[in-house]
């Protein structure tokens, strides 16, 4: 079994000696590896990384994100994806190659104020992220409650192989879309179910750094609903 050394760190904390490879949020200075973010440092034979607990969302190609339409030009919608860059959704992505701004009405498809589920199609250091809705389950979100969390907590909310999010969905009978950018959409048949799902999401955000979180969330859900949660793996 691989040994992983873990500890809480702040920027500048020493996490390993020089013969370890810095993987993410870690930097080599001289012959030592230091943390560059607040978070949980993990050092294994593979390298040293810090799982961050704060920070803005930086787009990654392939990520599912939830965005808000905030403007449009003749050729594309401008989308707030809760990052330091606005996302751009080309009209062609929706209308096809034959898109013509004279003939096709962009506002008929998406208006300012609409929430959409989309993917990051392209992104690099020299330009703003390009978005796409050309996939199953992408597009305008017709209903649901928007819950915003720190993007750094998203992996924890999803859990190992989706275990955390499935636990919450099953117990509250809600559907939850999680954007990698920290925006989630909760929808369900009952107002109480939605409220409970929101409570569970906020609990995960608050305690993401702690041990045994999945069990405690399960316990909370069970005590609120009075229903046992089945084994999820």
């Amino acid at each position, binding site marked *: 079994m691989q040994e992983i050394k*873990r*500890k*809480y760190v*702040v*920027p*500048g*904390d*020493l996490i390993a000696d020089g013969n370890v490879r810095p993987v993410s*949020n870690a*930097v080599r*200075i001289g012959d030592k590896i*230091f943390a*560059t*973010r*607040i978070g*949980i440092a993990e050092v294994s034979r593979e390298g040293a990384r810090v*799982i*961050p*607990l*704060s*920070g*803005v969302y930086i787009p990654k190609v392939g990520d599912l994100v939830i965005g808000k339409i905030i403007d449009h030009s003749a050729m594309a919608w401008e989308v707030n994806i809760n990052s*330091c*860059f*606005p996302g751009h959704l080309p009209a062609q992505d929706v209308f096809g190659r034959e898109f013509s701004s004279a003939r096709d009405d962009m506002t008929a498809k998406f208006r300012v104020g609409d929430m959409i589920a989309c993917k990051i199609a392209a992104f690099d*250091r*020299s330009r703003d992220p390009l978005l796409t809705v050309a996939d199953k389950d992408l597009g305008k979100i017709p209903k649901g409650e928007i819950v915003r969390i720190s993007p*750094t907590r998203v992996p*924890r909310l999803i*859990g*190992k192989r989706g275990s955390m999010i499935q636990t919450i969905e099953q117990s509250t009978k809600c559907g939850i879309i999680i954007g990698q950018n920290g925006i989630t959409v909760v929808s369900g048949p009952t107002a109480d179910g939605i409220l409970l799902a929101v409570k569970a999401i906020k609990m995960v955000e608050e305690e*993401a*750094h*702690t*041990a*045994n*979180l*999945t069990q405690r969330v399960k316990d909370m859900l069970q005590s609120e609903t009075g229903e046992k949660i089945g084994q999820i793996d």
Partner: protein
Amino acid sequence: MKRLGKLINEQGIRTDGRKIDELRPIKIEAGVLKNADGSAYIEFGKNKIIVAVYGPKEVHPKHMALPDRSVLRCRYHMSPFSVQERKNPAPSRREIEISKVTREALEPALMLDDYPRTAIDVYIEVLQADGGSRCTGIAGASVALADAGINMRDLVAACAAGKVDDTIVLDINDEEDKEGQADMPIAYLPNLNQVSLMQVDGILSREEYGKCLDTAIEGCKKVYQLQKEALMKKYFGDEVDVGGSE
């Protein structure tokens, strides 16, 4: 300009009761503002300063953006009620200079290359000033930047030392600033052992200079521990077991 007074008594005690190598009481709290991406509240003695960080974020106007790194902008500002005589809110030349040296003190610690085409804004607001506010501001800004999750090589600690009654003392207060003989604010990156802010106002001999610098750096190391504690407290609370993996 500066006058020798009886600022240190025969027992080596200063006007506010401290010994010559003693810091004023320091309080630091991370994450105090809801809207800011990162924030901190900090007190050095009677200095009360609040810092907010917004960023990385889009740059406006667009032509100010740099293609390969983030633009760091700092604003040190004093509220009108922060000083003895009510101050006009418009930025003074002193505030503009301090904003500049603050930015230059923080920049070496930040990994700005990680955020091309963005800006990082640091806003330092002095709510009450009492000598050494620029160091207080830098120490607070460092905590706020870490709170915002911006990649940093190190935290930046800051502290001033000075010469008062021919003696090198640590962390000079308002009275010592006005009546003392020299004053040296320092910002320091503890893990890299590098100085990023250094100013001197007054007269120091060669030996006094070295002693003053060492004293300020020792002060910085103590400030650094408190900065770490403030961040650990906000993010990890009383947790001992490192979780976050299952």
